[in-house]
């Protein structure tokens, strides 16, 4: 499905930003190159953006600016700059990226592996979210980790949510596209729904602030 687009002109008017600002953000890498969609219009070529993603990104940039973050800081927070290939348990704990309880779950599943790949770390981070909120028990968090480990490659490219359902004490974990609505029978309760791209951004900004902490 092709996402709904917004023209550059409409974007600027809707968000109250200027051409100069937009070009500056582009230079700083705040807006991914592939979000700029060129299409021919009656005035020649015009630039469009994926509407939802772009509006959310502009809002995020503007709100971070309100908190006096520099453009470089915002760029770090929103960029998809490469991270290290693996993360060690000790570093993660030291930076308070994820909780020890969530990491222990992973360690139970994969005894002896002290280094986590990013996909594994994401699985742990999602489990961490579920545990911290009290939505999920230990077994459910484990199921979430297992589901993400297996399903991650399939949903990496698109925006997906991890959903935890419970019916009469029996729980089910599934991954669905972020835009899809869930229609469930009456006894089923949607206990938690975690948006993965959002979680990834939070995770990355934590990792980066940790990196900064180590450097300074």
């Amino acid at each position, binding site marked *: 499905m092709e996402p709904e687009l917004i023209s550059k*002109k*409409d974007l600027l*008017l*809707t968000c109250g930003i*200027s*051409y*100069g*600002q*937009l*070009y*500056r953000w*582009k*230079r700083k890498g705040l807006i991914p190159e592939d979000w700029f969609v060129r299409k021919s219009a009656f*005035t*020649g*070529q015009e630039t469009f953006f994926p509407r939802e993603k772009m509006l959310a990104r502009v809002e995020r940039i503007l709100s971070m600016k309100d908190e006096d973050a520099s453009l470089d800081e915002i760029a770090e927070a929103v960029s998809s700059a490469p991270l290290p290939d693996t993360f060690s348990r000790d570093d993660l704990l030291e930076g308070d990226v994820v909780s020890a309880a969530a990491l222990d779950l992973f360690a139970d599943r994969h005894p002896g592996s002290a280094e986590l790949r990013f996909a594994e770390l994401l699985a742990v981070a999602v489990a961490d979210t579920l545990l911290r909120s009290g939505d999920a028990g230990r077994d459910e968090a484990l199921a979430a980790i297992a589901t993400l480990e297996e399903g991650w490659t399939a949903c990496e490219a698109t925006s997906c949510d991890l959903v935890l359902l419970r019916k009469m004490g029996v729980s089910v974990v599934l991954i669905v596209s972020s835009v899809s609505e869930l229609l469930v029978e009456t006894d089923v309760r949607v206990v938690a729904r975690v948006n993965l791209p959002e979680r990834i951004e939070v995770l990355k900004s934590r990792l980066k602030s940790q990196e900064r902490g180590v450097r300074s």
Partner: protein
Amino acid sequence: MSDTNRPDTRIAGAGTVSGGTYGEVMIAGAGTVRGDVDCLAFKVGGVADVQGTLTAQTITVGGSASFMGDVKGTDVVFSGNADVHGALSAESLKISGVARIDGAVSAPRIDIRGTTKIGGDCEAETFDAQGVFSVGGLLNAGVVTIKLYGGCDAHDIGGETIDVRLAQPWVFLPFMGDRNLTADAIEGDTIYLESTRAKVVRGANVTIGEGCTIDLVEYTGTLTGSAGVVASRKVTNPTA
């Protein structure tokens, strides 16, 4: 600059340097660099053929150099003839000779005094051109200052302040030919244009000076001057 890990190397006649890590690489005669080079200073006074990527703090080409791969430096000065087949990134890029870069160019500060052809996009905080240039993609800079000494073009130009003026040469320039700027779209906050041909100019405050042909001007603030403007409209309400 001598250092056991970063030896200096120098070609005075004709020779070949293999890729690797160096302190200073100096090519005064005719030299070929085989492989990727990482050095502190790369200087070409003669003719150099770099068959890999180059990473250096200072890159000076006074002679003639051709780079097969990407070039990355802090201070890059091309006063001779430089040909980069990859992308070029620097903190400061000064071109007073003739340069051709096939890929994208990115440097906070770009000064063009000679002739420059860029195949890809060009990004800078300050882009200052007093010469002849061509950008195949988007020229995106905070402040774009162009003094026209010849025919310049960019596919599109975007930035905060865009200022294009006809140079007032203090010497007679008989061989310069047409002096103008051509672009599809020019978008910025404050725009001043002279001798410019563009399909569309969009901005907050736009001033159209002498010698322009602009198909459409869209502005949110003010439009000053209208000679050569085919159509213009003030953009106000998103719902309109």
